[in-house]
């Protein structure tokens, strides 16, 4: 069962789709882990139990802290989203795609045995089995969450949408079964193209898939358009999660939440906020309209 309310983490990393200035201000505000934990504490104490975290250095610190204070966060569950795209983008720009993959895999200390795999028989691992490479990357990023209660592991939207455009079914099928088999949790997919992705996942034979996308009254970040989203939600067998429900502040909170809650198929609402007032208001609105 997916949590009705999931607390997002974009605000901690200076992500604001509306304004670069606001993004900078957020970056400054959440420079210290303590400031982040204060907000997480507010959310947790308000009764929110589920947290979506993009895998990155900040997530590592947050998870370390939560492990060290396990009693305080006994009921907390996690919805990680991977890979940490910004990290890869930087290395890819410098070393190319394979250079970056090689560096990332080899930088992982416990992947020592992989060295052999990479060079075996004069043929690189990339040539022989890209799915194995994908699994290695998943394992590396999942280490951040070791010992914590993970519910769904999401494939981050840039990667999801890029692969969706390429039309490579194997990656989706392989990711889904690996997450299920190895970690015993559900696979999920973040996307900016929800209707197209849902059709594709169903074609891949992934049953009742979990798809997280922007869903808001303004139609913001909903491609190709809001009508297609509404129809897909109504008609297709999948589990939608709604994010960007407030469209970075473009919609009145009441209207925004009412719009999402009016669609009973939507299982969960992911929202991020950085003040006590906003967190509690949004949570109460969701409960009111649900």
């Amino acid at each position, binding site marked *: 069962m997916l949590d009705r309310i999931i607390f997002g983490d974009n605000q901690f*990393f*200076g992500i604001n*789709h*509306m*304004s*670069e200035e606001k*993004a900078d201000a957020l*970056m400054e505000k959440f420079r210290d882990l303590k400031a982040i934990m204060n907000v997480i504490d507010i959310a947790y104490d308000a009764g929110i139990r589920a947290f979506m975290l993009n895998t990155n250095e900040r997530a590592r610190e947050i998870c370390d802290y939560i492990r060290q204070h396990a009693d305080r966060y006994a009921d907390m569950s996690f919805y990680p989203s991977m890979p940490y795209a*910004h990290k890869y*983008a930087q290395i*890819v*720009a*410098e*070393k*190319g*795609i*394979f*250079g970056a993959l090689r560096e990332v895999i080899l930088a992982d200390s416990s992947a020592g045995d992989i060295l052999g795999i990479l060079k075996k028989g004069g043929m*690189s691992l*990339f*040539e022989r089995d*890209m799915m194995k490479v994908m699994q290695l990357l998943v394992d590396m990023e999942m280490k951040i969450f070791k010992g914590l209660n993970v519910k769904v592991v999401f494939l981050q939207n*840039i990667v999801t*949408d*890029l*692969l*969706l*455009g*390429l*039309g*490579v079914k*194997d*990656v989706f099928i392989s990711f889904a079964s690996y997450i299920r088999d190895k970690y015993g949790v559900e696979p999920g997919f973040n996307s*900016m*193209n929800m209707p*197209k992705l849902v059709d594709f996942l169903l074609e891949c034979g992934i049953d009742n898939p979990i798809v997280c996308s922007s869903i808001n009254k*303004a*139609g*913001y*970040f*909903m*491609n*190709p*358009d*809001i009508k297609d989203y509404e129809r897909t939600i109504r008609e297709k067998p999948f589990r939608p999660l709604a994010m960007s429900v407030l*469209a*970075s*502040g*473009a919609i009145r909170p009441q209207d925004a939440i009412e719009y999402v809650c009016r669609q009973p198929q939507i299982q969960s609402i992911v929202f991020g906020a950085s003040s006590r007032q906003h967190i509690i208001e949004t949570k109460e609105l969701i409960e009111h309209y649900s």
Partner: protein
Amino acid sequence: MIKCGFIGFGRMGITHFSILNTHPSVDVVAVCDSSDIMMKILKQYCTKVRTYTDYKRMMDKEKLDCVIISTPTDSHADVIKAAVQRNIHIFVEKPFTMTPEEGAAILKDIEGKHLVTQVGYVNRFNEVFMEVKELINSGVLGDIKNFSAEMYGATVLKDTKSSWRSKKKTGGGCMYEFASHCIDLAIYLFGQPDKVAGSVLQSVFSSDVEDIVSSNFIYNEGRAGLINVNWSDQAYRKPANIVKIFGTKGKIVADKHAYKIYMREADEKQGFEVGWNTRYITDFAKSVRFYVRGNEFTRQLDYFVDCMEKSNFENISGFSAAQKTDVVMDEITKDAAVTLSRGAANNTRPDGSPLMKKPAKRSSIWSKFSRQEVESVR
């Protein structure tokens, strides 16, 4: 269906592939890249496309309608020429070519041919900048007197020698790889300057290329603009473009996500009050049919397809527009040499050691090294 082939399958090539592969009018039939491994993997997982390591062979065998070129800049001219000879429509990543001479020769070659050409200056398809362009044209700002076009990012934070982007010979450096976006945006919004002055190229970390580009654009009609670009600025999480425009009736400050306009008098038609008016991208963003990495990337390629379908050869980001950017970049480089010879720039590394005694000078594509690079693309 438009038959499309890809040349170069790195970060940008893959992004463009993903966008066009989902276009209802486009059939992506073939991909060419110098990386054997990449082509093997692609063949394995994307069975419908044929793969090549020789682009001329691909062009000859596949009867393509268009090509998407995303190779290092020093190979652009050769690949473009091969496509022009075969009457194939061309989309090429920015910048256009290595030198104004190369670009001019290509423009001469395509004269009279009915070819759609486009260069990947994606800012021209950003919703905020498109709106700013319309506002300038509408006259709401009055006479544009002064502007600044800035671009910052944390792209290069150490001396990376491994990438083609860090080498002059392959078309690397902040000017070509980064500032070209900012310079093109300034030309798109304000036109090609009649003169550039006081240009400086500085290095922060790189040993072979510039990391900071600054210059002044001067226009005969009494307009001036400041260009300031730095790709070694860690304060930016993502590359940011900032444009400030001063006109006789008002002022605009814009980035990729929002703009604000200051009006001396209200403009009812545009809905602007006296003083500051802020517009966020959420106010006017339009969805795209398929999103990868940003609306503007889809909009730019869909426009290219649209031009082919409608036989529209007046592309707003076509070769002749991009040639202006190449000419201005060349002028900045030459102007910087003069500025530096006067000792105006402090060209030292953060540790105080000297760097780049002379500003980056574009070598000819026919240098031995770059010819080998082109061969490897084949």
